[in-house]
């Protein structure tokens, strides 16, 4: 042993204390990290539970069973000839109101949804034979009653609900028409199908435009482009586009697609094109990462036996990168699906009561519908807004889940 050594006395008190302090700091730091994760997760849970708490009621509605004695009612309808036009002239709103008054008392109009008569119309359309008998038909209750039945009403309304309950005509159940209907003015009648379909069409356009272009761009940049000022510009543009505020894309859509190209306002086509410009860079970036992660040895192998660059890419690189590209695409699409601001710029914030038939029809999308409903006068819309949010979230979580699943499933380490 050499004389100059002065080994540290690790067992000394000072050292032991110091170690204890260091370990305490270690524990604190770790807890801090755990706390950060938990806080973020708790926020998410809080958000989701708030939305669920508010929104689940939106999937139900209160209905009142009306006994309609068709033969005795002043209905102007020829049972042999039920047509749409005939039903319009049949004076149904008045008949409904009268029947209701007879059954429920003079304030019946306030108890029923203003469009309650459409339920009777639909019942007649479904089975004209009921015109010859007395039939019990469930019609939606008015918003006030609906809210009161769910425990959020004024005292008068609660009293009315108690009375109706006593009569045994009130029922609250799952509201299928919320999933099949479209925008409307009566919260008991509205549905999200129109907005949902609008979202689907918009996403379709977005996907068809952004996916091929995004993948092609990623392939070009990653596999073929030689580094030059030119590819630098492309690269900077793409990275920048991925971060440009979405509202700027709205401005672009407004001035190029609407004002310059004169494409139809409010259409899924324009919305899809605008969002495609937004999504494309996301796909490019995800695509490039996926392509990068394909090991060069695969390319070498193919090139080494004389595959051409195009063959290398389309027969080897692309198939292997596809799961990664798809994951990126889904994430980009999910983001586009939740996007609102740019669509406001191009007129997709309209009242649209018929689901769009095609990409050039006026349409709205789920997030915009949520935005619109959050501004509705009637209080019945509050729970509908939350319910629509739930639908949107479920849709998005499903997409994100799919992306995560794909990522986990195909995450390969070469």
């Amino acid at each position, binding site marked *: 042993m050499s004389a100059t050594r002065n080994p540290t006395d690790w067992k000394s008190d000072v050292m032991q204390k110091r170690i204890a302090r260091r370990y305490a700091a*270690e524990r604190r730091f770790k807890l801090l*990290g755990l706390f*950060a994760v938990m806080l973020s997760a708790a926020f998410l849970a809080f958000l989701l539970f708030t939305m669920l708490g508010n929104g689940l009621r939106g999937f139900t509605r209160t209905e009142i069973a009306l006994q309609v004695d068709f033969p005795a009612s002043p209905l102007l309808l020829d049972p042999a000839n039920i047509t749409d036009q005939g039903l319009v002239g049949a004076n149904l709103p008045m008949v409904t109101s009268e029947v209701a008054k007879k059954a429920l008392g003079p304030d019946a109009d306030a108890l029923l949804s203003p469009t309650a008569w459409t339920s009777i119309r639909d019942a007649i359309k479904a089975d004209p034979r009921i015109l010859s008998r007395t039939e019990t038909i469930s019609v939606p209750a008015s918003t006030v009653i609906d809210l009161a039945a769910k425990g959020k009403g004024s005292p008068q309304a609660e009293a009315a609900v108690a009375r109706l309950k006593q009569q045994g005509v009130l029922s609250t159940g799952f509201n299928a028409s919320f999933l099949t209907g479209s925008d409307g003015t009566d919260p008991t009648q509205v549905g999200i199908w129109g907005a949902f379909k609008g979202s689907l069409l918009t996403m379709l356009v977005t996907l068809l435009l952004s996916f091929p272009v995004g993948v092609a761009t990623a392939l070009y940049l990653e596999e073929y482009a030689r580094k030059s000022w030119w590819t630098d510009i*492309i690269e900077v543009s793409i990275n920048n586009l991925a971060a*440009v505020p*979405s509202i700027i894309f709205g*401005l672009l859509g407004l001035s190029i697609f609407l004002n310059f190209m004169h494409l139809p306002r409010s259409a899924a086509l324009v919305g899809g094109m605008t969002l495609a410009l937004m999504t494309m860079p996301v796909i490019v970036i995800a695509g490039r990462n996926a392509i990068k992660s394909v090991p060069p040895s695969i390319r070498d192998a193919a090139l080494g036996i004389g595959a051409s660059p*195009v063959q290398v890419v389309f027969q080897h690189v692309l198939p292997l990168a596809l799961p990664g590209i798809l994951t990126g695409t889904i994430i980009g699409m999910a983001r586009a699906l939740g996007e609102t601001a740019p669509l406001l710029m191009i007129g997709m914030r309209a009242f649209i009561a018929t689901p769009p038939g095609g990409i050039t029809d006026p349409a709205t999308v789920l997030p915009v519908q949520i935005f619109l409903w959050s501004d509705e006068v009637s209080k019945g819309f509050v729970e509908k807004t939350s319910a629509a949010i739930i639908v949107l979230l479920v849709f998005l979580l499903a997409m994100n889940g799919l992306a995560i699943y794909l990522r*986990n499933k195909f995450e390969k380490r070469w």
Partner: protein
Amino acid sequence: MTGPAIFLLLAGLGAIAWVSARARALRLQTVARTSGRRDAVHSLPGYHGWYVALWTLIPAAIFLAIWANVSPGLITQTVLSDPAAQSLPADAFSRSAILGEARNIASGAQAAAFNPAAQALVEPYRSAISEYGVIGAVLALVLAFAGGAYAFTRVRPDFRARTRVERLVMASLLIASLLAIVTTLGIVVSLLWESIRFFSMVNPVDFLFGTKWSPQSAALGYGNKDAFGAVPLFWGTIFIGAIIAMVVAIPLGLMSAIYLTQYARPQVRKWMKPILEVLAGVPTVVYGYFAALTIAPALRDFAVSVGIHGASSESALAAGLVMGVMIIPFVSSMADDSIAAVPQSMRDGSLAMGATTSETIRKVLIPAALPGVVGGVLLAVSRAIGETMIVVMAAGLAANLTLNPFSSVTTVTTQIVQLLTGDQEFDSAKTLAAFALGLVLFIVTLLLNIVALRVVKKYREAYE
């Protein structure tokens, strides 16, 4: 001849071209092979097939695309010269409505006429459509044949069909990548154009450095000088997006990333990471709704209960907090990447010296990852300042220059929405201001991104 029929026909021609060219190449290949020269045939028969098929299809398709845009005009010309068209109203919209309807009926897109005047035009339309349809179809077919025949004559053993076809593939990839530039140009042009008009009305200096934002006074004839000072908007944007949101997002995001990458068991990490990512996937309109109806009132009540003056129910804090939460996954995934990019050897080096994990993280990993983290934070900032809906719904419209997080402020994006979706004067500075704001926003995010990417790249290179 109808569109689908032509497409089918062309597709058929293309298929025939492919098959026959391939067969020919195959024959040539067999001949060459029997003669023993293995490299006598340059390309696989399939490539010859594609070469000829593309020559058959592309010229014809280009022609059809042009024709589809030219022929309606020609058809309308023809119909208008028909005597039945003399009675059409003069005004263009009614006229085109009638014409359009007649056309729809003629082409079968519509069953009956809503406007009686249209019925008379259906027949002329029908004949014109079929006439031009036939002309177009014939021309397209001639082109297809010509293209195909030309290409077919080139099918020879030494013809480099593969090279040609691959060149086309490359060209289309290149064109796709240009779209990004076109989009960027589109943004710049559309913003610049309107902004220039704005700046011809409002002095850019007043706009950029003025502290009074009040478009209403411009509308009320107060002149533009004192109305378009965008500093309060810039401040609001920075206050919400770059200060409050980041105060939330940076510590939470960074610590989450550290915990998940350095401490958590793989199983925990596998589940928590995607869960946190969901925070970034929640649509901003949902956050906005949540911020406006749940967070903002709670914050206001809190502020009032602790006696803060001037607390508004639309507060910078509510918007900033929620935005911060939304940004957490951005920060954490960037931090995650940067920390992961610090070579394992750094970590080992520190641990081997007897450092604890947290000492290693704080003294070695984070300093080493700092440029990447900073880059990530810059990107997150650029995302935050571009965020719209949360602020629209939760932060209000008052252009206040204030440091009080409980008061209402407004941001650039909110004002853009407001100026463009609300009441608009014709070509007034007020509407154009939205584009000027958009331009500023664009430039700022562009700069932020360039800087951020530079930083991240520099630092990645340092380890590669």
